[in-house]
């Protein structure tokens, strides 16, 4: 799924768009968690195709993405990230979307669209 289509189905606000976002990049996997060490444990393959879905709206969700070479983070439940955190994301080349849906709904929507779990 392209980032643009993910944004559309999740009715997401685009908080930060990196260069990669605009390209015809395909994402195929999602890992959803509020616990960063779970993401750090589970995302081991194809980080460039993996989306991190989280309710954690502080800098650590972006730091986690940075360590794992992830390029797209989706914040759920319509939470706002402060400007400083958004700027950090764009400096790191990480695109950030914010969806009004809950974690459960966002997972359901992306699953229906064909996105799968990390393997």
């Amino acid at each position: 799924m392209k980032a643009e289509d993910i944004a559309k189905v999740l009715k997401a606000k685009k908080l930060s768009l990196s260069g990669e976002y605009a390209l015809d990049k395909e994402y195929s996997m999602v890992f959803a968690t509020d616990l960063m060490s779970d993401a750090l444990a589970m995302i081991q393959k194809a980080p460039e195709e993996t989306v991190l879905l989280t309710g954690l709206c502080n800098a650590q969700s972006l730091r986690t993405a940075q360590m794992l070479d992830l390029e797209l983070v989706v914040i759920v439940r319509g939470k706002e990230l402060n400007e400083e955190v958004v700027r950090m994301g764009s400096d790191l080349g990480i695109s950030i979307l914010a969806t009004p849906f809950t974690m459960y709904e966002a997972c359901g929507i992306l699953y229906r669209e064909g996105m799968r779990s990390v393997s």
Partner: protein
Amino acid sequence: MSVIYQKTYNVEKDDYANAGLVSSLIKQSLRTIGVSSAVSRRVAVAVYEAEINMIIHAYGGTITLEISDDGAIRLIASDLGPGIPDIQKALTPGFSTASKKAMELGFGAGMGLPNIKRNADEFHIESSPAGTVLDLKFQERE
């Protein structure tokens, strides 16, 4: 084998605002030096978990990055206590004594030390009330 690069970073206790900064700097220098993305990712995950542990569980300390002429990468994370009473227990996936503040930061899954162990090619841990030392080595995997 000799060390061709060495740098030590300070990690401050309870410095939640800058948590992950040292790991970020280390990851950036590895990429600049030309370390592969696979190895830098493993180092980054391990050092990030270690840095967070030093902030949320310990009184801060230092992280040293060393690179040898054969390409081996060594990380030494050394903190100022209070130490880990039962290392075996601490290494068990899911075991955590994380505070509410640490949970708010997104940590406390009890997966940090197991993550560090899995990502490193060599893993040594020593702990006493004076502090915990993690000594890790990384190299290209076939």
